């Protein structure tokens, strides 16, 4: 009897210990981000943890320029990484390398398809690789043509509709004493240096590649070719001042020494921020000049790693987290939009009153919505990052007249074809 009692007590203690362990063994997801607005990220994480007992999230962040390299280092070394910020230009390479997992491998059946219906076309393209959705938008934005309303009004210049109009306006302003009417983010190290060029070419209606991914831009009749020639001409006429980063374009435009720039749309929110910009309220976006007024749209996304998806419990937790951050009712996406002016890929938010009120302080929300509807995704492949790194220095040289547009486009097309062949034969 005594032995039985002892055995029962032991069993009870063991059960209690096991339950205790199970409770104690919360899943801790490793969430890797670039370090934009960490307080907001941490606060969103805190809200998720409160809503999902048993799941903790540890945030690791890297600076934006070092983000991709740092992340690849984590993947290759097997550092635990569950959910990451993904970029449209990296997604195909990460997918091909098996670093990341399609969302339907961790989400309940039908959940991803349901959310995809609300995502803007260009954003959905950017989070899709080989017909599989790999991410939900963290933010989605377009590249905008931004001008100073006051400067144009004072000079009696209408808002330019084509790139030729931009040249005419800039020449008129230069004749009136403005040394460099256009300020341009000129930095071959940044991927968006190429993106801004593509956005301008899209304004003209350019197609840079055909459906079989053959390059078209080396043809002098291609609109991208014409746009590079336009930029080179603008530089040679002394209409353009270079700045190395958008963070320098914000103060440069606020000196009143420039009238036009081409940057990510969220920069407009910073330009028009009355808290620290003397010319806040003077800046507006116009449809990208050109016959089509299209522009480049892109999406950064929450992506689940293959490492997390391989473990059913972690995969399920990772999906819950991604769905909380980017899924319905789009609370987190809305927060980024309202508080930080970040764009979004979830189309219903364009009708949200809070978003309209918040964005109305710094932009014409209807114009933004129209631009998002007209935006096109870029062309991204497993090798496009490698190619972009090769092509950007060529573009930079051509813009400032150190290389011919013809040779630049020819070299760029040749390199693309080489990489395409190499990757096809892997």
């Amino acid at each position, binding site marked *: 009897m005594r032995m039985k009692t002892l055995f029962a007590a032991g069993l009870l203690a063991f059960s209690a210990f096991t339950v205790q362990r199970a409770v104690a063994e919360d899943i801790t997801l490793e969430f890797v981000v670039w370090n934009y607005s960490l307080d907001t990220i941490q606060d969103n994480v805190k809200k998720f943890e409160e809503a999902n007992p048993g799941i903790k999230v540890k945030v690791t*962040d890297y600076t934006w320029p070092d983000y991709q390299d740092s992340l690849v280092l984590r993947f290759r070394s097997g550092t635990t990484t569950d959910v990451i910020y993904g970029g449209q230009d990296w997604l195909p390479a990460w997918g091909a390398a098996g670093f990341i997992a399609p969302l339907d491998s961790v989400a309940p059946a039908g959940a991803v398809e349901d959310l995809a219906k609300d995502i803007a076309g260009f954003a959905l393209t950017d989070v899709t690789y080989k017909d599989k959705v790999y991410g939900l938008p963290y933010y989605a934005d377009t590249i905008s043509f931004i001008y100073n309303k006051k400067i144009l009004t004072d000079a009696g210049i209408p808002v330019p509709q084509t790139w030729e109009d931009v040249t005419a306006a800039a020449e008129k302003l230069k004749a009136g004493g403005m040394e460099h009417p256009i300020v341009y983010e000129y930095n071959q190290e940044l991927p968006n240096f190429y993106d801004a060029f593509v956005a301008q070419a899209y304004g003209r209606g350019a197609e840079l590649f055909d459906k079989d991914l053959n390059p078209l831009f080396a043809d002098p009749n291609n609109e991208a070719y014409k746009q590079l020639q336009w930029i080179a001409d603008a530089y040679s006429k002394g209409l353009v001042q270079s700045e190395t980063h958008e963070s320098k374009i914000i103060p440069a435009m606020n000196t009143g020494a420039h009238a036009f720039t081409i940057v990510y749309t969220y920069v407009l929110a*910073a330009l028009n*921020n009355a808290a620290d910009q003397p010319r806040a309220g003077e800046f507006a976006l116009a449809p990208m000049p050109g016959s089509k007024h299209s522009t480049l749209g892109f999406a950064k996304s929450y992506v689940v790693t293959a490492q997390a998806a391989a473990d059913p419990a972690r995969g399920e937790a990772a999906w819950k987290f991604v769905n909380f951050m980017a899924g319905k009712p789009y609370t987190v996406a809305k927060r980024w939009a309202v508080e930080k002016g970040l764009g979004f890929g979830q189309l219903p938010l364009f009708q949200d009153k809070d978003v309209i009120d918040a964005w109305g302080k*710094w932009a014409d929300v209807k114009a933004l919505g129209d631009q998002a509807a007209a935006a096109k995704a870029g062309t991204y492949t497993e090798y496009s990052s490698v190619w972009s790194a090769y092509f950007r220095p060529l573009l930079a040289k051509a813009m400032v007249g150190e290389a011919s547009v013809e040779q630049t486009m020819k070299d760029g097309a040749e390199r693309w074809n080489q990489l395409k062949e190499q990757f096809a034969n892997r």
Partner: protein
Amino acid sequence: MRRNLNPFLTFLFATLIVLFAGGPVILSAVGSVVPDRIMMDASKGLFSEGLNFETYRYVFTGQLPDSYLAENANRAMISDAARQVPRSLLNSSVIALSSMVLNLLLGAPAAYVFARYVFPAKKLTFMFLILSPLVPAVALVTPIYMMIQALGLVGTQAGIILVHTAKALPFTVLILSVFFRKMPNEIFEAAALDHCSRFQAFWRIALPLALPSVGATGLFAFMLSYSEYMFSMVLSGDAATRPVSVVMAALARNTDVSWSLLNTGIFIAIVPTLVLVVFVWRFVVEGLLSGAVKG
């Protein structure tokens, strides 16, 4: 023989040197107390609204500058990365001090052995150690990351300290071995006659004599660690471990960092280095030179 220098040229060059060295510090100090809306408005004088310390208040307390509370101001468009600066200074100090101590603990005995004893493969190991800094650091990022990952130290200060120690160790050994080598043999022979062990000879005789060089080499290791960026960036995971070099890089690249906030961050980061330089730089130079030329 002492030659007379042209006082005008001396003044001119001294002014240029002061401007070159001190200009960025002065600019960041001024930029940190002038809000952007004043700085970029050509119609207003730089100090027309007096000095403004609200960005400092924000960095240390989180209280928003008044301009961010005005109507039509976007209250959230201010970078919280700037608030990491004070913590990152502490992190940098802990990392750099630890790296310095480890360097001296490992480097001084190693330098002594290399300088005073003969052992197999001495030349080969010394050359390997001394030439290792010639390998570009960027080429070592992946293998070192994997080693630190295998040790479970990614995202910890210990991981960064280990790497910084390894990076500075060749310099420590080289500088101190030069000094130890130039100590007269007679001192150690006398010590041996007095039954001093090898360790006692190092601890009681060589080390006290080399103290100025040891101090200078330690400070050199401190500064190497304090300013290192690449490994700190890759190995530090979050604000709890991140040193100031990484935080400054983030500040300089985020669009929601105003110029005055950036300048505030820069100035706060510069101050400890300035203090260090003013108080100990002469000591460093003298110590290093004595190690290099003493015969």
